[in-house]
């Protein structure tokens, strides 16, 4: 049956092919590129927003080649409010945020879903590498994609289950190389476009530089880098932007030293030797569970994107939080990152929460 689908087109190869696949399946595809505005561009160029969006141009070119409609949707204010401002605030509080998860939940799978409804579309499709399929207990579940190297389920852990029937991930059953091959075969303008790495509004990966541009008012005073047991080992130029487990950029002798804790209130970065950073337990807050309740029994969990999962148990705590006990210690869990939980087979996403503290 032909359905109308809204495809979130970033101007990259993945969402281009996602749109192409739905169109090829006979659906009426409406491509939408989000104009995310100044938060993004200020970080890139330090300049004021201009009207040209090169990525939207790429998406428009692909849409024209596919014979589908394409629109540019202004979500500048929402992106600033829901993604960029919390990103800055989290770092200022000494945590390590993952803005992509809020962007997915609030922009792509709430605002764009409403957009889809406004346009009479069945739902929103994206170029994410993830799968939506029948869950064992009935209903729909979120599963790892076929291409494990591109797996983005970590960034989707807090989607409400209620949206899954209005979301499609057309690339979930494909390998990345097949996606590129398909893009070439279809002659899409984005076929050879390089992979975007890291955060879209911090394209050079320099978080501290981005913070300086995004929040120029925040003080970046020099402060001590100290070992956990006391002695000051060096100096930093502002504690915000360091993350637990980080080794580079500390400039300390007698290493290797790793960031253990970021105390922005005291403008202090605490460091430790590697082994001390492993944790057997994390406490998470604002947990969300796709089955509606925390999982009982053994699960798999990871505390950072691309970390190997380990066996774990989930213990709900009061106030919507949980404690995760790991069968083997995990490396440097960072407050602000997500602890994401899959089923024991490591296939289906069960949910997770935001790390408040290790131990």
């Amino acid at each position, binding site marked *: 049956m032909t359905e109308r689908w809204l495809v979130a087109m970033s101007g990259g190869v993945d969402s281009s092919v996602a749109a192409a696949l739905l169109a090829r399946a006979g659906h009426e595809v409406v491509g939408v590129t989000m104009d995310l505005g100044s938060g993004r561009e200020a970080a890139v160029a330090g300049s004021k927003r201009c009207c040209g969006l090169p990525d939207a141009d790429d998406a428009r070119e692909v849409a024209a080649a596919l014979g589908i409609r394409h629109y540019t949707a*202004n979500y500048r204010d929402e992106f600033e409010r829901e993604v960029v401002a919390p990103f800055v605030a989290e770092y200022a509080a000494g945590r390590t945020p993952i803005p992509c998860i809020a962007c997915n939940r609030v922009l792509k799978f709430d605002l764009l879903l409403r957009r889809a409804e*406004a346009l009479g579309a069945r739902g929103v499709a994206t170029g994410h590498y993830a799968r939506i399929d029948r869950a064992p207990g009935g209903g729909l579940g979120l599963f790892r994609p076929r291409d494990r190297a591109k797996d983005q389920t970590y960034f989707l852990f807090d989607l409400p289950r209620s949206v899954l029937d209005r979301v499609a991930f057309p690339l979930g059953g494909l390998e990345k190389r097949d996606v590129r091959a398909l893009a070439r075969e279809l002659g899409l303008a984005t076929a050879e476009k390089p992979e975007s790495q890291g955060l879209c509004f911090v394209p050079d990966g320099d978080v501290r530089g981005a913070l300086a541009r995004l929040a120029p008012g925040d003080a970046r005073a020099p402060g001590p880098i100290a070992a956990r047991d006391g002695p000051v080992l060096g100096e930093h130029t502002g504690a915000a932007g360091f993350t637990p487990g980080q080794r580079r950029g500390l400039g300390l002798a007698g290493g290797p030293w790793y960031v253990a804790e970021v105390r922005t209130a005291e403008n202090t970065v605490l460091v430790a030797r590697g082994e001390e950073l492993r944790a057997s337990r994390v406490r998470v807050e604002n947990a969300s569970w796709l089955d509606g309740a925390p999982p009982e029994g053994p699960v798999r969990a990871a505390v950072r994107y691309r970390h190997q999962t380990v066996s774990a148990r989930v213990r709900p705590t009061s106030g919507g939080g949980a404690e995760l006990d790991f069968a083997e210690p995990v490396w440097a869990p960072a407050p602000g990152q997500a602890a994401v939980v899959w089923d024991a087979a490591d296939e289906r996403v069960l949910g997770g929460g935001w790390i408040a503290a290790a131990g």
Partner: protein
Amino acid sequence: MEPIYLDHNASAPLRPEALRAFAAAAAGTFGNASSAHAFGAEARAVLSRARRQVATLAGVAPETIVFTSGATESNNTVFRALGSGAHAVVCATEHPSVLEEAAALRVRGPRVTLLEVGRDGRVDPARFAAALAPGTALASVALANHETGVIQPIAELAELAAARGVRFHCDAAQALGKLPLGLRAWPVDWASFSAHKLGGPKGIGALYVRPGAPFEALLRGGAHERGRRAGTENVPAVAGFGAACEAAGAALDGEAKRVAELRDALWAGIARAVPDAVRNGSHEHVLPHVLDVSFPGVSGEALVEALDLEHVAVSTGAACHSGSTEPSPVLLAMGVPDALARAALRMSLGPTTTRAQLQRVLELLPALVARVRRARAA
């Protein structure tokens, strides 16, 4: 499904007469109008005829018309000629090609007064007169607004300016071919025109320069256009512009009445089907083909897309070049609240608009408005 195009203020389809003239000149009249030989003479003849056609529609003498690349260049030309230290009065609802020039003036030195408009979008002549000061070098007010179609009392404003020795510029890009113009009778020093708004080619327009008005060329490097606009003339586009003006002029009276009736029926239908819809701008002093309506609780951007998916092309009136939408600065300047300014739809009719098309729009619109509202509340 036959597409319904209701965005003539953005650009109008090329008139058949304009296409014929454009094609004939593009195919046959390749000579440089500056050349001494017969090929050059032929090009000059095409320019001369088109100049007369444009001048006739504007109600001015042919020698006062300078061809430019469009109304943006015409507007820019007037502002760039202002000396440092001068004062300019500019209406707050002008096109960006005026407002951004005024903003640039501020950086260069001249002082700029942004003239407020009323909730109906009109300039109050008394307020205008009060804004003119000793040393005011220029006042600039568009004849008809690009978003709302609201018509300003240009003759009165120009008289007020003239009485104080202030030069007056009028952006008439949206008005040419839509209203009978007798610019010659008004003390307007410069007026800007665009071809594609009235069914001519894109990339061509004109600047009217009243005899005796000061003039400084924006582009230099030759004696083209009697030294007022250097660069080899775009002969085919000029020919198309001229033909479009002649065709628009011949149809003007009947067409203005026809589209006004259609527009009024469209508004009556919308007001019946969506009772809380708000029509923006003066209902009386407005171009006959323009209807600007806010639908409370609706994202104008989403409504434009929803209509487009049903093959109805309209605008929020404020699309930026990327296609994404800002709340209309024109409506904000009129005092329309932000939420309503984001909920606006601009429908601009044209020669090919039919009653049946508008009937279809009226059948679609209420359900789409309801759907967009529902989705937003969800």
